[in-house]
């Protein structure tokens, strides 16, 4: 039912005084139906410059080969795979929000799932470009597919984690795309029915002829639930398999059975940080403060704290196991993270991921928007360094000291990475211009139960425990989109 009333002690998910269904549509579609503002154009210009840099650097790599990167005989994998794992990890938050939180019936996901899923898709695209460009001969990118001998190779080796990775990432990308697009259909139909002329034709094609009849909605909900059910183990499997690229090797530092859960927690950690980075800006620029409220921000910060702490425990376990194993190479690899020439990268990894996120224990910090935004970027810097530490520091000094070496990135390495960030933001900025950045149908679903106005009506109606009402009002004080004086009068 659309209208059971929710417990008053739960914080509202939609704030604002006179939010109607039409108001939700108008607010969410404002950036889609109008010309973008100055902030968007500035952001888009900068991002597309980055994307151009990416095109140039990747083309340069294709033309001259990966010799244009700073790799050497010892460090044969560096910024490329670091960037790949970093982007795939960032993608994980979108699926967590859209699938796992749906299974747990966390209604606050409704206003952030659309943009988080879009972020997933763009992040996996960025990740995939690394895979293709580090192949050296990208025109042979079809070789990991199970093709018969006539194509120049024997069958692919299904025992190899790298082949599992091909299957995992491609499945993950295409299933995420299906999930995201199916969820978009009702909202595309909303745009279609409000538009005229050519826009109407375009959105008409895109919306697949959606009508919103009873049977359509019933099937839609079944599809979404089952997609959520299969995406949940899928997302866990993807980063598990990514971690096995490292965990199943004999290289010290790449020989760690704790990698699967450790990588999954790290992926969700960095993904939520990226969602936070994007949404704190988006809600301000697009004026969506009533839908992405302080509750959403705090909830995401709590997940960052939880997953950051899991990552911290994994780091400690890694050190303990290196000590306990008695293997001198293993022990050296972990000591080398602090006393070796890359000590600064190790400090960035442990400092940003473990120490900085512990600040989230304080409610004042969790509900402070500028600090949350800065911390979300700190987390992503830390997570980039985590992958760099695991990959480059482990490789640069292993069994034979005569082959120890350092890794120095070239301008191509740096440009591919910086450019991929530009590419990501270009796609995200285009997304918020042409598609609804909030799932309107899903937000409308919770308007009558979880909005501030519905709860205010309950308070005005009386019949509630006064302590609970006090608790509720107290929790509202941290909301930047609520005028608390409305509550003090009574």
């Amino acid at each position: 039912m659309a209208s059971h009333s929710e417990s008053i002690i739960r914080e509202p998910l939609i704030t604002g005084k006179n939010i109607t269904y039409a108001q939700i549509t108008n607010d969410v579609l404002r950036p889609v139906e109008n010309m973008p503002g100055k902030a968007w154009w500035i952001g888009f210009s900068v991002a597309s410059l980055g994307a151009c840099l990416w095109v140039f650097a990747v083309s340069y790599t294709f033309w001259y080969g990966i010799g244009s990167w700073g790799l050497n005989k010892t460090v044969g994998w560096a910024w490329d795979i670091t960037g790949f794992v970093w982007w795939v990890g960032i993608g994980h938050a979108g699926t967590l929000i859209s699938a796992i939180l749906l299974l747990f019936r966390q209604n606050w996901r409704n206003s952030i799932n659309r943009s988080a899923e879009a972020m997933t898709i763009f992040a996996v695209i960025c990740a995939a470009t690394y895979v293709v460009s580090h192949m050296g001969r990208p025109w042979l990118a079809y070789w990991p597919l199970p093709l018969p001998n006539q194509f120049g190779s024997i069958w692919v080796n299904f025992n190899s984690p790298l082949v599992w990775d091909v299957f995992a990432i491609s499945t993950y990308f295409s299933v995420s795309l299906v999930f995201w697009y199916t969820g978009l259909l009702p909202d595309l139909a909303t745009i279609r029915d409000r538009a005229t002329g050519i826009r109407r034709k375009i959105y008409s094609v895109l919306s697949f002829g959606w009508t919103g009849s009873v049977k359509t909605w019933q099937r839609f909900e079944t599809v979404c639930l089952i997609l959520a059910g299969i995406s949940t183990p899928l997302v866990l499997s993807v980063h598990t398999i990514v971690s096995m690229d490292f965990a199943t090797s004999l290289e010290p530092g790449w020989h760690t059975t704790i990698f699967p859960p450790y990588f999954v927690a790290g992926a969700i950690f960095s993904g939520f940080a990226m969602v936070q980075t994007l949404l704190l800006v988006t809600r301000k620029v697009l004026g969506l403060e009533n839908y992405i409220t302080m509750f959403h921000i705090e909830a995401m910060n709590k997940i960052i704290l939880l997953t950051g702490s899991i990552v911290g425990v994994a780091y400690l376990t890694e050190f303990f196991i290196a000590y306990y194993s008695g293997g001198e190479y293993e022990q050296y690899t972990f000591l080398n993270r602090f006393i070796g020439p890359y000590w600064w990268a190790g400090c960035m990894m442990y400092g940003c991921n473990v120490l900085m996120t512990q600040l989230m224990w304080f409610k004042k910090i969790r509900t402070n928007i500028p600090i949350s935004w800065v911390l979300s970027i700190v987390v992503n810097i830390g997570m980039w360094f985590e992958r760099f530490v695991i990959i480059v520091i482990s490789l640069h000094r292993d069994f034979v000291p005569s082959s120890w070496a350092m890794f120095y990135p070239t301008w191509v390495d740096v440009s591919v990475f910086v450019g991929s960030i530009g590419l990501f933001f270009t796609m995200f900025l285009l997304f918020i211009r042409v598609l609804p950045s909030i799932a309107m149908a899903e937000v409308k679903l919770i308007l009558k139960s979880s909005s501030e106005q519905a709860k205010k009506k309950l308070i005005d109606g009386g019949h509630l425990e006064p302590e609970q009402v006090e608790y509720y009002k107290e929790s509202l004080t941290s909301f930047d989109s609520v005028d608390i004086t409305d509550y003090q009068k009574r």
Partner: protein
Amino acid sequence: MSSTKYILGLFADPDEMMNGIDTLQKNSVPIYDVYTPMPIHGIERKLGIKDSRLGYAAFMFGCLGGTTIFSMAYYMLVQDWPMNIGGKPAFAIPDFIPITFEWTVLFTAFGMTLTFFYATHLFPGRTPRVMDLRATDDRFVIAIDAKGNIPHEDITNLLKEAGAVEVKHNDRKYVSYE
């Protein structure tokens, strides 16, 4: 005889629309369909719509995907070209689990979603069959086939009583056609 084809009751509130359905059913007015901007839970039971069977389709597609890739891996690595990798057995079942799982998920997702599109007649470029343009925005629309139903004014009154903000007598079934 009027030229009205469909009578639409437009509601601004989902609960009032549910009330409208009850009122119509109490007066034995058959409902053609209901169009809403969001899923309304409990409406299927009221309208006597059967549960979706997409779950069965999803399960079958999942079984198909898992079987396909496992058989492929068996054929390629055990039957056609077994490789000696450190003397380990060619039929390494644990190693086939990740890909079997991935294709189970892949086939489930695509098979089920395409079945959904097929069954609901959704495809890119399909002309939308919309009875009221605000049904995807902020109106909850009950559509009643006008033909052979009790006097139209009575239906209008029933809908108005139940809380409809507007009642439309449409001469055309779909307003979305140009």
